[in-house]
């Protein structure tokens, strides 16, 4: 009880002090103080602005110049010819197109997404482009150089059917652990369906990707362990006529 009373007393006393402070006589003085403080602050800021005093502790923004342009040159034409199955002329054409879009010599993921989205204006192709980027970026450094690009293309367009299937498996296997789980496949499927966009005929069902994944796993998963390994994948694909036929499409792209 006494403590409460003490506290009450204290607060009352504080209030009284504050009141006296803000009393008439003090009012003018208070404003005076405020004015003087204002002038002081502004003069300090002015001096700092003029460069006479330095306030900042640490590096200022101007020192923060990071090299934004990274230039990358691909290896020689002959070396690329050895690594890929393209002819010299084809490499030249590919490089010209590549360099036109990416003058710095490397593609980063954003540019990749932008370029890919130009071919699919109706839907959202960014997720699929992301997966593609991961597949092309073999050394995992966040950018695709011309060599990566052309090596990947070489496998798809000039490789054997097995090579192509291998590459496709690599694309599906998001965490690169050698087997495709249902979740990974679902992600891939959703990204493919996203590319179609919203306005399709017939209207896209919500669970269409999931159904499609179920179909896929039924076809591919031989031992029904819930994952598809590379051998299961290649075996099942080789048995499927449609897939074999569609793989032939890539022969004439370039």
């Amino acid at each position, binding site marked *: 009880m006494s403590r409460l009373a003490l506290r009450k007393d204290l607060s009352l006393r504080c209030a009284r002090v504050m009141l006296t402070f803000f009393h008439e006589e003090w*009012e*003018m003085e208070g404003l005076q103080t405020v*004015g003087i403080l204002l002038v002081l602050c502004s003069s300090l800021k002015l001096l700092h602005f003029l460069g006479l005093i330095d306030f900042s502790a640490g590096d200022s923004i101007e020192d923060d110049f990071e090299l934004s342009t990274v230039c990358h040159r691909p290896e020689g034409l002959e070396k690329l010819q050895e690594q890929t199955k393209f002819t010299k002329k084809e490499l030249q054409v590919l490089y010209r*197109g590549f360099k036109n879009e990416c003058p710095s010599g490397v593609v980063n993921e954003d540019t990749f997404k932008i370029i890919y989205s130009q071919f699919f204006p109706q839907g959202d192709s960014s997720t699929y482009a992301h997966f593609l980027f991961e597949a092309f970026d073999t050394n995992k450094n966040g950018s695709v150089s011309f060599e990566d690009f052309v090596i990947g*293309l070489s496998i798809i367009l000039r490789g054997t059917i097995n090579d192509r299937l291998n590459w496709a498996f690599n694309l599906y296997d998001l965490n690169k652990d050698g087997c495709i789980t249902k979740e990974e496949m679902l992600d891939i499927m959703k990204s*493919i369906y996203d590319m179609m966009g919203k306005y399709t005929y017939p209207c896209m069902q919500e669970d269409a990707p999931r159904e499609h994944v179920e179909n*896929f796993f039924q076809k591919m998963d031989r031992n029904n362990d819930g994952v598809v390994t590379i051998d299961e994948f290649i075996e099942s694909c080789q048995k499927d006529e*449609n897939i074999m036929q569609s793989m032939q499409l890539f022969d*004439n*792209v370039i």
Partner: protein
Amino acid sequence: MATGVAAWLPFARAAAIGWMPVANCPMPPAPREHSKKQDELIILNVSGRRFQTWRTTLDRYPDTLLGSTEKEFFYNEETKEYFFDRDPDAFRSVLNFYRTGKLHYPRYECISAYDEELAFFGIIPEIIGDCCYEEYKDRKRENAERLMDDQEENKDSRLPNMNFRETMWRAFENPHTSTMALVFYYVTGFFIAVSVITNVVETVPCGSTPNQKDVPCGERYTVAFFCMDTACVMIFTVEYLLRLFAAPSRYRFMRSVMSIIDVVAILPYYIGLVMTNNEDVSGAFVTLRVFRVFRIFKFSRHSQGLRILGYTLKSCASELGFLLFSLTMAIIIFATVMFYAEKGSSSSKFTSIPASFWYTIVTMTTLGYGDMVPKTIAGKIFGSICSLSGVLVIALPVPVIVSNFSRIYHQNQRADKRRAQKKARLARIRIAKKGSSNAYLQSKRNGLLNELLDLTVKEEEQHMNKTSSLLESQHHHLLHCLEKTTVTFIYFIVDDYGLQPMKTPKISFVDEQLYEQNCVEGAQFSRSPSLSSQDGFTGTCCTRRSRKRIPLPNASLSTTHTHTHTQGLQELSAIHIQCGDQPSLSTSRSSLNIKSSERSRINCRGQQITTAVISLPSPTNFPPDGDGHGLPNPLSTPPTINTTSSSNIVKVSAL
């Protein structure tokens, strides 16, 4: 279409490998490339400068000239390149568009030339990149405004048949069209000035009666001022009513600013007449007199500068609004602060915040009357901050308004100067171009002269045609064919610059006997109707005309000669025309005196008469000494010649 990244299409197609294993049905067959064309270099020769690029670069934009098969029209087989006869500098930016996908507008390029180039190559200007689009749009707008000014000028020269109302309206809008309008313009201006000065002088204290204080002139000479006021208002009312009558759209006229000013200027007088000297409304009456000062705004019809100022203020409305808003904000803030700062001081004039407004405004606009000054230290500090910030707040929007005004003013000045120089410029251009428009008639004369001379002198006159190029001769042949088709003759030619058509024919009538007489005068005569000389020609033509009233053959005309030619036409004796094989009918003298425009419509219907004239001056190609023997001969022969070569023959003979 992803034409910009067409080079990446193989990649996109390759990336489709991800879909194949999950697809449940077979893929459609791929389109086959019929000719596996290797990418090749194309040479584009633009006025001699060779540009080279890959074919695929150009194929990126198939809806332009270079990207489609349209460029095959420009293919040159021998040199195996595409030749374009265009400006190579502008072509650079066009080709860069294909290479980079972005179209840039070069600043040094003329805007209409650039537009033409883009139109030629089938590129729409809207795809100019953001970096250059602003500049492009600005220049385009500027150009359009300039052209619009010029077009408005052309619209002023209307057709001669306007009814009274339209004439009056035009007189009101452009006082320079007729003397009456100019007189009216000056009279109204004078009366506006008189009215304004009257209003001002009315309030001056002029002379005091000995026992009273100074009396304003208005009360001393009431009758005089009343009469003057009445006169002015009468003039203004008449003017307003006339304008209302003449306006093409009365409703729009009544809503226009100038008419509202007019009404406001004259209403107080009428209201004053209507109202008697009631005590309760006299206060309002006094207020109404203030509106008489609006008469000064009537001057804006007379002064272009005022109009520009008004237009500028209207167009800078947003800047002005911002200025006002920021000032108000600052005033309120500083007034509040000053009030509280000065509250403690004993004899403070800052009695309330609104009272401090006056101090703040006076300080911020750096007027500093000194009727209210802060006395406390805090007040003084805040007062100084107030004055410093006042300068800034006012100085910021003002340059925007100033630059707007400057731009509009200069534009107007330029438009005026252009208009003033336009007539002189067009006259000069017309003189320079006279040769080409006359060339047809000249060559026709030459041709006819040729025909006539063929009978006498066979081979001399071939050199007459040496100056006309193939193009010209083909053009003349075309016009001649048209003449033959419609069985009329061309004799007036409208200028390229769209000026009023020449009211008199290029060719004048010639009286044979007089012509013979003139021929005797030899060299002087031979030189006079030269096509190229104007001044010397004018001299001989007009002096000759004044002396003998002979219509000289003159091929070159300027509008200054119109009067003399109509005169000359009236003097002609006759035209003798033969059309086809009909017997000739001569037109009566009266028909010769009618206006040339109507004359042209008197066609040959079928094979009837055409009125047409041809003069036989000595052509410029003739050497002077060849003149003597060249000319008289045909004159002796026309009455007897029946040239069978052409069915329409024109004979000029005296009745």
